[in-house]
């Protein structure tokens, strides 16, 4: 097994990418559907609620330096229960790995290139992901280091350019239906930005040199992701209003279409699209790496790179059949993805944490 080390800054950028990577352009709509004009309060709450989950992930990693999450699961839960938990964990990595190309293909095919069949876009995307994973984690980490700067600059640029269109009336009335929808909204948001961070656990304890510094990087990365999500949702609500945000599929993209500064700065929506495809690419690479590495560790393979290409082929076919239509996708995300992400992103680390503490207690007592 390769033991490449990544720096703490790279860990920061990877955490940020894992947290907002998959969802930054679509998420505003799901939150606005629940919390309406108070969606931005949900986005403000979520990073605070996420702190304990991130802390548990960090703690587990710090107790088992040099191991990946699948190995940690097996070590804590034993062989049989550990295998079941690991299969569940790998299944969520695989699921995300074919959702990400589906989203990219769907986005490009509906918004930019309607005559191109989505599977051509999926194919190009998967080829890039497979090549990235074949290069190894160090290359992925270095790329994310650069991409995070792109994302920051482009997001800030979008926000600055769209700010003349802000209507503060869109935020009123604040807390129209009390706090309940806000909390529901922040639960939904946490399924998209907190729980996917657990995917990073395939990289975090195994490839890190300095574990005490790593804590800071993980929290900083998570807060950075929370901040980007917050400004995205806030600007969507401020510019488009809660109602319109809720019915759109890609609200942030429409937000960028609103940019009109004189006659020069118009039609800048592909700034947002470019940012999103970059973050999706990083997310896709991370989840695909996690899935391949997890699967090869579960099966006891020595070299995970040997199964990258066949897995890429399977993921490519799956990305074309996973959602037959948009209605299916919306229903699936609302009814299935949330409990699925909660089980693997929250309950599984919590269970490992508790079992770890009990085991430690027994050791001390004896």
């Amino acid at each position: 097994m390769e033991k490449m080390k990544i720096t703490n800054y790279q860990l920061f950028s990877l955490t940020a990418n894992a947290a907002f990577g998959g969802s930054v352009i679509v998420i505003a709509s799901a939150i606005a559907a629940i919390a309406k004009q108070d969606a931005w309060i949900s986005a403000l709450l979520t990073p605070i609620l996420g702190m304990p989950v991130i802390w548990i992930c960090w703690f587990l990693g710090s107790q088992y330096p040099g191991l990946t999450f699948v190995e940690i699961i097996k070590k804590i839960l034993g062989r049989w229960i550990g295998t079941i938990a690991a299969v569940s964990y790998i299944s969520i990595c695989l699921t995300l790995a074919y959702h990400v190309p589906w989203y990219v293909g769907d986005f490009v095919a509906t918004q930019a290139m309607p005559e191109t069949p989505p599977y051509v876009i999926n194919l190009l995307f998967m080829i890039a992901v497979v090549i990235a994973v074949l290069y190894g984690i160090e290359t992925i980490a270095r790329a994310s280091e650069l991409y995070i700067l792109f994302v920051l600059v482009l997001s800030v640029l979008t926000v600055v350019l769209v700010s003349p269109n802000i209507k503060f009336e869109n935020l009123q009335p604040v807390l129209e239906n009390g706090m309940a929808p806000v909390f529901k909204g922040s639960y939904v948001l946490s399924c998209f930005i907190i729980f996917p961070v657990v995917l990073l656990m395939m990289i975090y304890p195994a490839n890190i040199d300095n574990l005490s510094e790593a804590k800071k990087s993980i929290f900083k990365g998570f807060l950075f992701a929370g901040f980007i999500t917050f400004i995205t949702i806030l600007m969507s609500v401020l510019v488009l209003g809660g109602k319109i945000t809720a019915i759109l599929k890609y609200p942030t993209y429409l937000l960028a279409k609103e940019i009109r500064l004189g006659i020069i700065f118009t039609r800048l929506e592909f700034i947002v699209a470019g940012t999103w495809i970059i973050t999706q690419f990083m997310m896709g690479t991370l989840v695909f790496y996690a899935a391949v590495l997890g699967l090869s560790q579960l099966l006891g393979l020595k070299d995970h790179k040997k199964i990258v290409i066949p897995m890429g082929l399977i993921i490519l076919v799956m990305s074309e059949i996973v959602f037959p239509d948009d209605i299916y996708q919306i229903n699936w995300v609302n009814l299935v993805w949330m409990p699925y992400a909660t089980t693997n992103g929250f309950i599984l680390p919590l269970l490992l944490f508790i079992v770890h503490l009990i085991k430690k207690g027994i050791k001390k007592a004896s």
Partner: protein
Amino acid sequence: MAIMSILAISVFSTVICIVEIPKMLEQRLYRELWIFCILLGTGTVLAVFKSLDVEIPNPSDFIAWVYSPLAETMKSITK
């Protein structure tokens, strides 16, 4: 079109086999070889089925079935 994509997939799989299998035999990675063959076989069959428009069981349906007891709770949250 179906024939073209099936041809492309077969050529792709054959090339990958020709490139990868001797390497693995050389390094004596027999377990990797088995898993590689199973996964590549699955992938090729799936891709051929897809190009022939045969219905492939959707993994999303299976996950939806696993979490179906929670569907009502989720409906109340997302309303």
